[in-house]
C-alpha cells in the first residue's frame, strides 16, 4: 500500500570518513513518506554519523542526500520539516521542563501542533512541568524529548537511541507516536537495537553492518 508512495528521502552512495578511519562507504537507500526506518548496526558502525549527516549537521565525504530530488544542503524546506534528537537530547539542566519545551518551540518558530500541557500529559510528566530538567531521571529526560516531538511540527524525525532508559510504557508510547507520525505521512529514522513494535507495512530496516536495506 505504501510502495506506490514517491521517494521522499534518497541517500545516494554516501561515504563517512572520520579522520583517517572509514566508517562506511557506498551507502544508498531511499525512504518514502509514511515509513519508519530502523537503523541497526554494531557500535561504531556509523548510526549516529548517518543521522548527523541526514540532519545536515555533518556532510558526507562523498555522495548525496536528496529530499524530493533536491540536495538537503540547499533545501530550506527540508530543514523546516526536521527534528533531530541526538543522544544528548538538547535540554538545559538549569531550566524547568516547561521552559525547555517553550524554548524549543520558540527557536523552531514553526508554531505548535499541541499545547505544552497536553504534550506533557501524553508523556506522563504533567506533575513535572515546573521541575528543573537536571532533577529528572534519564528515562524522564527521554520523555521530555518525546514531548518535543509532539509539540514541534515536523515531517522528518531523526531519533538517535530514543529508547535508552525508557521503561516499557515509554517504549509503547514512542511506538504509538511513531505509528501516528507515519500514518500522517511522516518519516522517522530511528537508531536502536531494540525491536520496534511497528507493523511490517510501515517498517523498513537498515543494517549498517551488512549494508542492506529492506
Amino acid at each position, binding site marked *: 500500500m505504501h510502495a506506490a508512495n514517491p521517494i521522499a528521502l534518497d541517500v545516494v552512495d554516501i561515504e563517512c570518513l572520520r579522520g583517517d578511519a572509514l566508517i562506511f562507504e557506498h551507502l544508498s537507500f531511499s525512504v518514502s513518506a509514511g515509513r519508519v526506518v530502523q537503523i541497526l548496526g554494531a557500535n561504531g558502525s556509523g548510526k549516529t554519523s548517518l543521522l548527523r549527516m541526514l540532519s545536515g549537521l555533518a556532510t558526507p565525504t562523498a555522495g548525496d542526500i536528496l529530499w524530493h530530488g533536491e540536495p538537503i544542503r540547499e533545501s530550506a524546506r527540508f530543514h523546516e520539516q526536521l527534528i533531530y534528537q541526538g543522544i544528548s537530547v*538538547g*535540554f538545559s539542566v538549569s*531550566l524547568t521542563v516547561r521552559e525547555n519545551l517553550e*524554548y524549543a518551540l*520558540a*527557536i523552531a*518558530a514553526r508554531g505548535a501542533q499541541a499545547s505544552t500541557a497536553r504534550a506533557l500529559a501524553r508523556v506522563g510528566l504533567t506533575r513535572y512541568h515546573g521541575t528543573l530538567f537536571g532533577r529528572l531521571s534519564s528515562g524522564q529526560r527521554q520523555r521530555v524529548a518525546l514531548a518535543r516531538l509532539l509539540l514541534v511540527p515536523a515531517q522528518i524525525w531523526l531519533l538517535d537511541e530514543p529508547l535508552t532508559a525508557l521503561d516499557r510504557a515509554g517504549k509503547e508510547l514512542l511506538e504509538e507516536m511513531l505509528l501516528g507520525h507515519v500514518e500522517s505521512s511522516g518519516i522517522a529514522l530511528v537508531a536502536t537495537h531494540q525491536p520496534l513494535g511497528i507493523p511490517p507495512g510501515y517498517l523498513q530496516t537498515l543494517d549498517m553492518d551488512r549494508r542492506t536495506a529492506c
Partner: protein
Amino acid sequence: MLNPALVAPRPASFAILRREMLRLYRRRGQLIQPPLFFVLVAVLFPFAIGGDEHLLRALAPATVWISVLLATTLSLEDIFRSDQEDGSLEQLVLMAKSLPGACALKALAHWLSTPAPLIAMAALMSSVHDLEADTRSALLISLVLGTPVFSLVGTIGSALTVGVRGGALLLALLILPLYIPVLIFGAGAVRNATLSTATGSEYFFLAGLSVLAATLAPFATAAGLRARLS
C-alpha cells in the same frame, strides 16, 4: 541599517535571550566570580608596583582595563560549553531560523553577564581609588564602548574552541591579540582625560570597533559553530 539576516523572528530572539537570563539567574552564585577576580587582579597591581601614590594613580586606569580584559577572557569558555555538552547547541544550529542572530544574542547575554557587572564594579572602585571626575568618566565611557568587542569577538573564539580539550588556554591565545586595539584606544582615552586633552577620537574608534564586531562577529561565530559541530 540592520542586516536582515540578524533579525530573527521576534519570539525566537526573545526566547533565546529569556533562556540565557533564566540560566544566568539559576547560576547566580557564579555571577559574582568575574567581579571578584577583577577586584583581586586590580588589588595585585599596588603590591607589585609599590607605594608610590602618583605612580599608582597614573597606572590605575590601565590596571582597570587589564583586569576587565582578563576577567572577561576567563568567562568566554562558558558561552557555548554547557550548550555543547547537553546537546542544546546542535538543536540551536539545526532549528534556529537565523543562527547569526542567535549568536549575536549569545554575545549580548555574555556582555550582560560579565562585562556589565565588571563596569559597575569599576565605577565603584574608581570612586574608592579617588580618581578625578574626568578620568573616571573617561574610564567608564571607554569601558562601555569597548567591552562589546570583548563579548562579540570572544563569542567567535568560544565557538571555535567549543568541545576542545584544554580549550580555555587556546581560547585566550586566540582572542587576547584581537583585544589589543580596544585596549589601546580604551586606555588612550583615559590617559587623554587625565592630561585634560580631547578624548573624542578614542571614543569614536571604540564605538567603531564595536559596530564592526557587531556586524561581522555573529556571522563568523555561526560559521565557527557549524564547522565545529560537523
